[in-house]
């Protein structure tokens, strides 16, 4: 929402814009600090030294170029899934199904990665990425169409479709497309060809740059195109959108499809850049983390980047923390849960930091059973 203000640069001074920015970021920043604080208390109670633990976490995520690269590669699929959830939010849709769309994206890109042969590297990677993203988009079409034509609430349908996705991908990887090389008995697909792999640029995974590009493109669509204006109008007021002559059902479906495309791309990037094949269990939670990240990033495309890097850093540094400070790495999950708690219960945080109520920066969702 803050982006809309940008259109009127002449009337807003730099100071006003800075304070407007603070209005937006104060709650997420405070939520993260609060979560870390409570995490420290939990660490202390369980007998560990919180400072030591956090130092190790920091070292494991930003302490070296390798650690930083690890953080970025963890953050990469999260940017996509966060973007997917945030994009749907703009049309007033809560896409809980990013996880399922991401799984199909991961599997489809893996299949493209090992089954298509004879392509030059760049082309093969691009094609596999697009196939993965398209798989996510097609899967997201289902809840989109259900919502647009029957009014079925997307929260319910996407939750259920997540199970559909988990079971179908499990079946495929343990059945028709199971890797049979070298007497393998684990449920997984064959490894993708080298030509499909996403390369690293030094320590920086190329997928991360792709994620940044996706952020810019999504921002541009939302703020600079008529399609984005339609999506935001449908999200803020479906009735006004109808009055304005917009095709509300079409916009809802298209938004879900683009959201699923982004989620699928997240799964594809993880497969082609990190895992190298589809293996159930490797992508667990990436889609759900997208919800935390979208909310932490205030559903603004550019807010997604720092939010995803933060969560990525905790994932990247967790092992170092466990190794050096002797605390269970699950503490990072606790901190992440606390962040989600404080971001959603933002009234608590606002009370604590005495921030004024923001206007129009919240997430608008259509209620249960509405048209």
């Amino acid at each position, binding site marked *: *929402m803050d982006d*809309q*203000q940008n*259109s*009127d640069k002449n*009337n*807003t001074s730099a100071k006003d814009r800075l304070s407007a920015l603070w209005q937006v970021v104060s709650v997420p920043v405070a939520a993260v600090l609060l979560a870390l604080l409570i995490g420290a208390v939990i660490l202390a109670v369980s007998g560990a030294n919180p400072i030591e633990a956090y130092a190790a976490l920091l070292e494991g995520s930003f302490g070296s170029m390798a650690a930083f690269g690890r953080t970025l590669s963890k953050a990469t699929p999260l940017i996509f899934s966060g973007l997917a959830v945030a994009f749907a939010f703009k049309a007033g849709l809560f896409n809980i199904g990013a996880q399922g769309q991401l799984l199909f994206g991961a599997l489809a890109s893996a299949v493209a990665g090992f089954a298509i042969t004879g392509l030059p590297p760049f082309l093969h990677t691009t094609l596999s990425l697009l196939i993965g993203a398209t798989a996510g988009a097609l899967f997201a079409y289902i809840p989109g169409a259900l919502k647009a034509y029957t009014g079925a609430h997307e929260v319910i349908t996407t939750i259920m479709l997540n199970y559909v996705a988990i079971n179908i991908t499990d079946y495929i990887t343990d059945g028709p497309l199971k890797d049979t090389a070298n007497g393998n008995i684990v449920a997984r697909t064959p490894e993708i060809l080298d030509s499909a792999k996403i390369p690293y640029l030094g320590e920086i995974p190329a997928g991360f740059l792709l994620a940044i590009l996706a952020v810019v493109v999504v921002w541009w669509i939302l703020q*600079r*195109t*008529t*399609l*984005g*204006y339609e999506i935001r*109008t449908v999200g*803020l*007021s479906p*009735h*006004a959108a*109808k*009055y*304005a*002559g917009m095709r509300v059902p079409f916009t809802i479906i298209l938004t879900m499809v683009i959201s699923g495309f982004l989620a699928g791309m997240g799964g594809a990037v993880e497969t082609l850049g990190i895992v190298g094949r589809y293996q159930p269990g490797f992508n667990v939670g990436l889609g759900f983390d997208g919800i935390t990240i979208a909310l932490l990033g205030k559903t603004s495309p550019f807010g997604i980047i720092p939010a995803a890097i933060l969560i990525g850093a905790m994932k990247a540094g967790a092992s170092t923390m466990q190794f050096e400070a002797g605390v269970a790495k699950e503490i990072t999950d606790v901190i992440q849960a606390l962040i989600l708690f404080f971001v959603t219960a933002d009234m608590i945080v606002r009370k604590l930091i005495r921030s004024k109520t923001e*206007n*129009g920066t919240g997430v*608008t969702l259509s209620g249960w059973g509405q048209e």
Partner: protein
Amino acid sequence: MTEKIQKEENLALEVRHVTKRFPGVIANDDVSFSLKKGEIHALLGENGAGKSTLMNVVYGLYAQDEGEFLIDNKVVEINGPSDAINYGIGMVHQHFMLVPVFTVAENMILGSEVTKGTSLDLRRAKKEILEISEAYGLKVDPDALVENLPVGVQQRVEILKALYRNANILVLDEPTAVLTPQEAEDLFDVMRELTQKGVSIIFITHKLKEILNVADRVTVMRRGKVVGHTKPSETDAQGLATMMVGRDVLLQVEKTPAKPKEVVLEVNHLKINDERDIEVVKNVSFNVRAGEILGIAGIQGNGQTELIEALTGLRDAKSGEIHLSGEIIPFEKPRYLVEHGMGHVPEDRHKHGLVLAYNLADNTVLNTYYQKPFASKMMVRNDQAVLSNAIELIKRFDVRSPGAHVAAGTLSGGNQQKVIVAREFSRPLKVLIANQPTRGLDVGSIEYIHKEIIKMRDDGVGVIVISAELDEILSLSDRIAIMFRGEIVTIIDAESATREQLGLWMAGANPEMA
């Protein structure tokens, strides 16, 4: 002398020198007024004059910065609504605070439940409610579900709720804004009845006729200050309007006789079903000519809403045809209508007319955002064109706002309506449909919007005006169509129409018998 002493003894509430500041604004500046026992005291002022703020201070929702309150001639501290209720102050808000799926009785006792052991004693509650409603002559069925009640009766439940809590000072915040003329009359009867029983009423409004009709005394506010006290017997509508606005206001619409030209909108045998598949518009036919205003009068719920929704592309029709400049229009295609010269000021400006979270610039292109120069062929928006268009419209239509970048939701109702009017009237139009164009607006804004509508007519646009205010229909229209139970009973020349005759037809009298 004796009279003066008596006066002071009879005060139910006295507000002395109350000042309430918000960051950057003084909402109430040294406000004083007194409410006598058993009187209806009107608080008159334009939107944003500080009436509601003052009442929220009285009700304990805001704390005053300066000043004091006297109830029964004693200084009291009101630190919250519960204090206010204890002092016998009851408030009926503009938007009702009722639970739609609860019965009347359940709503009444909400917050002060009558219990027997651990369970609700609804039987006793019902008995008490019936006693009160009989005592004050306010009939309601305690077992009726609130959502099934008409708005006027819901309001009655709100009033009873306050009385149930022993209120003897009743604050009514713009109570007629949501009522039909008949319901408003009923409310005035109820108000008079209540004052007979010793209840004192503060009546917040900006409708002059209502004050002249029902109030005993009037306090007029402008920009947070009390600008005067008067009595209906000592003034008239013009005098009140001048006090309220601070300048002479045209209450009568000035217009020359219409010069109707060719038919621009023709409706033939239109039938429309509502959501429950019940026919609510039955075989309606009429036409509108360029350069005339057709008023559609009718009590709410007689099919006008559905008729207008079908005309403006928001609703499908079962059968019939609508011709716009001779061409049959497709149903449920608002964009077709925008592109073929139809302007629509919708009934509900918050639901359809504006996106409140959007800034004014985005709202001024709500239905033309995709056209040149606001967007290129490649669907890329041109922010600069949108902004300069908005700045021009804000100036031309005198929208009072800090600029095109502020959210529409932060403007007053009058200025929000001006944004819609600016957007719709600035397009090349053949037909304009204005549905309740001045609902909830203050006198100054009403004057402005009426002038603009007349101007559109004189520029050769065919105009349809729908309003719950008969006066608005009478003063704007060149011809008047009366709707009753989904049919157009008759269409008459506005010249020959009288309030009384229209009222009878709206209530179902047969014009052929007249």
